[in-house]
């Protein structure tokens, strides 16, 4: 497979996956069990995404580094009901400072 073809196939598959949910017939989603599960899908995926972005290293092991410090500060800020942008700024500042100090 040439690189061009690989790029195009990857693009096509990406779009097909994104489109799939929109093509599910509405009747199929009326089922009570389906209606309970689907709102939980983004919650589950984003929870795991936050974990992999902040607490796992490249080998998939739990790691406490600058990213974890940023996440911890974000948790505290959210518990203190800080506004959205402040939460982001504090997390970024914390991670940046930890990295600067650590080296």
């Amino acid at each position, binding site marked *: 497979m040439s690189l061009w073809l690989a790029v195009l196939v990857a693009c096509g598959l990406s779009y097909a996956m994104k489109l799939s949910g929109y093509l599910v017939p509405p009747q199929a989603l009326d089922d009570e069990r389906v209606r309970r599960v689907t709102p939980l899908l*983004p*919650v589950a995926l984003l929870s*795991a995404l936050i*974990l992999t972005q902040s607490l796992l290293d490249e080998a998939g092991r739990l790691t406490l580094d*600058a990213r974890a410090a940023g996440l911890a500060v974000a948790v505290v800020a959210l518990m203190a009901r800080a506004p959205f942008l402040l*939460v982001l700024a504090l997390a970024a500042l914390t991670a940046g400072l930890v990295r600067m100090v650590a080296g």
Partner: protein
Amino acid sequence: MRSWGRANRLSPATRQGIAVGVATGAYGIGCGALGVAAGLSVPQTMLTSLLLFSGGSQFAFFGVVGAGGSAGTAVAASTLLGLRNAFYSVQMAQVLRLSGWRRLLAAHLTIDESTAVSIGQATPSERRRGFWVTGLAVFVLWNLMTLTGALIGDALGDPRTYGLDAAAAAAFLALLWPRLRGLDPLATAVVAVVLSVAVAPFTPAGVPVLVAVLAALVVGLSPRPSRVPRP
């Protein structure tokens, strides 16, 4: 001062969507630089941002190509990372309730960021607004910054220096936060994290996030008292 007044009147979904767009867009520079460094041409790199448009998939694709892996492996890695968008699309289809060509556009913008901002909102109209504002903001900025990165390289340095990776995770957490008050979402999040930690050391990139789908199934299909409080 009129512009300030306008900015204050922007809805939460709009403000959050733009903020997430800016934070995510900043990563586009790295995407463009990495694509070219991995051996893709500038048009090929741009095509991934325009058409593939899923950061994790793009980085996975570049990673395999850059390491000398086969084209097939690059496609597989990219697809594994993008599979979670299929699960987002099931939920977003119900939030957006679209028909016709708008579904085709919505599908293209169905990514982590647009889904996260949408589910972080309190009303149906804000959920829809959050999806569109975020999807479009990320798309425009991601592509502009990819082009910048592909042409001039990583001139601004690693976005991690500025803690932007932590800001991205914090944004997802802040958007998820209001949802975690419900018992089902909280249980789902906990099970998702446990599953993800358990499989992460043994599985390729993408799988530790995908496995979280099981958490939604386990919690959503578990028996419960007959009176279910609805969000």
